[in-house]
């Protein structure tokens, strides 16, 4: 659930900030009262926040599929001492549904541990354990694995690419894994989208957008899995989603069987964030239901179908851009299909009648070579891209705006945000996501001296 609003409109606001600071003097200043305990009410919980999910047949190893899930939006490379790590108290999940019922058939779960003195020394390297559940059988497929440290700079973390490469491990089931900091491969004109889906020029497909995620990092978990472990042998289509869980803590509900002597043992896990298709939490799910959606499983997504059927984004597009309309904002069976069950026409990744928000990947579609990838994916004629899985190169903002605009129901418009690719070249080998910017070399806030 990438939060498009908070924290990511910084660049646009700098000029306004200066103006505001200059004009807002005076006024009564005093402190808040404090005898009542004011715990925060709204939390972003960035270490539990799923930002993006990718699933594709590996172009360089077509007998494998790669799943990449990202967390922690807007990691500022120069934000020390607040260095970024996975949360040691959360559980990170990647789920695979092989039969289209919205329930996981294969689950990968990750638990991270901070190394001793991690917080005080600014050491961001963590160790982690991977467990895999197939059906009801759970096995530990990797333990004591290490993430690379964050990319601090050439003195703290020299030769970062080599350092990061040491973070690629083999799991006991033949899967390759990487977990650690990476460049945020998502690209989007967040500032303009937040500004009521403003399209900067014309219909937006002529460039000129600003990639607000350029220079920011995320934490990635990447898996490269032999296709033989995923393929169901019939429609060859898997549904993928990622999630984060935290432990419930309670006041009154003390558990008799709990480990702690005082009866306040560890509570069970509760899912606090999930992500299948991109932009769903931001664009489709209404505010009042966001917590519920994030705690739900795709198997129970029927209750949210109406918001896919009648997307608010189409209403907004109609209001803002009547000259490109009409935009149909009701009865959008095309959106229900493409996001909830997979595409039937053409028969690409349909998984059956169960409506479930998953990223669906037909493993039998051969991958497109890196230099031939079309970022518009299926609507651009490239069947190996979104919404058949999702590659790092896929321009999901443009695709989503066009599909919501009616691309699948005969209303094709070259809509978009004018940002068509990541600011960093993606790697052509696992883990594909480029290295993060270092705190030392970060590109943001670079200024020229005004005096000698």
């Amino acid at each position, binding site marked *: 659930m990438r939060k498009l*609003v*908070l*924290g990511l*409109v*910084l660049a*646009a*606001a700098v000029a*306004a*900030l200066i103006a*505001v*600071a200059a004009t*807002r*003097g*005076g*006024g*009564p*200043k*005093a*402190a*808040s*009262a*404090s*005898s*009542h305990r*004011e*715990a*925060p*009410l*709204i*939390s*972003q*919980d960035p*270490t539990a926040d799923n930002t993006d999910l990718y699933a594709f047949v590996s172009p360089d190893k077509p007998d494998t599929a790669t799943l990449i899930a990202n967390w*922690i939006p807007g990691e500022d490379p120069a934000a020390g*001492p*607040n260095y*970024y790590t996975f*949360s040691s*108290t*959360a559980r990170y999940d990647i789920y695979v549904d092989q039969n289209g019922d919205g329930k996981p058939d294969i689950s990968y779960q990750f638990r991270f541990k901070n190394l001793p003195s991690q917080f005080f020394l600014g050491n961001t390297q963590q160790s982690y354990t991977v467990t895999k559940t197939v059906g009801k059988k759970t096995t530990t497929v990797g333990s004591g694995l290490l993430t690379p440290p964050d990319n601090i700079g050439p003195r703290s973390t020299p030769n970062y690419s080599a350092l990061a490469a040491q973070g690629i491990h083999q799991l006991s089931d033949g899967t390759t894994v990487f977990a650690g900091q990476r460049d945020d491969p998502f690209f989007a004109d967040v*500032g303009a989208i*937040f500004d009521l889906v403003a399209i900067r020029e014309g219909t937006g497909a002529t460039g000129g957008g600003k990639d607000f995620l350029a220079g920011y990092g995320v934490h990635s978990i990447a898996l490269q899995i032999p296709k033989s472990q995923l393929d169901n042998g019939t429609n060859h289509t898997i549904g993928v989603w990622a999630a984060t869980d*935290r*432990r*419930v*803590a*309670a*006041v*009154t*509900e003390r558990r008799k069987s709990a480990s*702690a002597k*005082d009866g*306040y043992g560890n*509570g069970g896990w509760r899912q*606090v964030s999930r992500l299948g298709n991109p932009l769903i939490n931001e664009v489709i799910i209404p*505010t*009042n*239901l966001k*917590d*519920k959606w994030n705690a739900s499983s795709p198997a129970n997504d029927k209750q949210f179908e109406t918001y896919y059927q009648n997307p608010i984004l189409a209403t907004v597009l109609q209001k803002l851009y009547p000259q490109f309309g009409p935009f149909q904002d009701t009865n959008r069976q095309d959106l229900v299909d493409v996001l909830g069950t997979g595409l039937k026409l053409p028969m690409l990744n349909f998984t059956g009648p169960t409506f479930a928000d998953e990223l669906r990947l037909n493993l039998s579609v051969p991958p497109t070579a890196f230099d031939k990838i079309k970022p518009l994916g299926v609507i651009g004629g490239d069947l190996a891209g979104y919404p058949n899985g999702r590659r790092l190169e896929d321009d999901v903002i443009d695709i989503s705006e066009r599909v919501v605009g009616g691309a699948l129901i005969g209303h094709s418009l070259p809509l978009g945000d004018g940002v068509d690719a990541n600011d960093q070249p993606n790697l052509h080998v696992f883990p594909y996501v480029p290295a993060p910017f270092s705190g030392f070399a970060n590109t943001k806030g670079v200024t020229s001296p005004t005096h000698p």
Partner: protein
Amino acid sequence: MARRLLIAGIAAASAAAILALGGLWHRTPAPATASDVLPTAVAAELQKGFAAGDTEAEVSGLQAELRANPKNVKALDTLGLADEQRVRETGDATYYTKAEGILREALSLEPRDLIATAGLGQLALSRHRFRLALALGRRAHAISPTTAGVYGVIGDAELELGRYAKAFKAFDRMAAMKPDVSSYARVSYARELLGHIPAAERAMSLAASAAVGEREASSWTHTQLGLLYLGHGRPRPALDQLELAVDLAPTYYFALDGMAQVQTSLGHLWEAIGYERRAVDRVPLPQQVGLLGDLYRAVGDRVDAQRRYALIGVIERVLAANGVKNDLDIALFDADHGIALTHALELARKGYVDRPSVFGDDVLAWTLARNGQCRAGLPYSERSLRLGTQDALKFFHRGWIAACLGDKRGAAEWYRRALALNPHFSVLWSSVAAKGAHR
């Protein structure tokens, strides 16, 4: 500069303050000393806020959006919440007034808007208007029973209204729905009130872990964890937490004040004064200005102590002008310092009606006792401990009332319990407890 802002603010706020407080306000601050109390904080820095580029930048971007689209409810919602967050970060209560106007505007455009309703509920909590907060929390719940935050508004309000079973149930609902820093912190506080300290520490550790990446929330949770350790006999781990909290946010008044409390307990009074001055230079919060005065008094500097005490009334007026109810806090300060005790009791009784919590019980008990009405105070003091809370100051008040009623042995026992939790629990009263404990 903060002092200029404060003085400028007083002019603007006075009229409203007089209206708000009626004729009840008697204390006269000494203007000659108020002017050089808050020397260093610069207006621009205060404006820039606590973590430059965080909330302030959001606020600016949202203001630009609203100039273009004044009816954008989402932007109004976000701006209202950002202004509330700015009070958390900077302590500047004028943002309460701004937030209220913005969220009311959002509600006028969209009467069933969840964010604006819950946001106004949170605002009412911040202003200690707990019945209003409860009504808003319930309205938010009717709009969205599956949003965890509305249980936070309801639970906080129930808690301050003294209805603990309901409050804890709300916190349990919240934490089961969405375990995160907000719900963990509330669960921790409830366990602390119940006297279940290791369990409270574990929940606050979870909160700190879930706050990673959010600077204010991180520093806040580590401060709270440190204060938990400090209040329960563990000053060294408390120091570790406060060092972390101050490292995370070196200008955060809440962490600086927490560090001052830890330094006080370690007997480092001058270090404590240094931290509390830094806190107060950022934000003149009444309790902190009061503690700074007490610290100066403790090291024998009566002039500096009086300067701080004189400022408190001024700050309280600004708070009142921004809608904050502080009767209990003022009563506690006055009772502690022997100021206008009859008036303090009036305030305590008035505050108790608004806030019949264990805090209300304790303040009313203490104010009654300081007015010589120890027998009337006793049941309130007993009520203040009814949850099993392990709180040195409440134990001390209970002991003081026992002594006042002639029960020296009972008093000594309560004093020993207070000192066992924290031998330096109060700059003003620890030594009184230490003397009384040996009878």
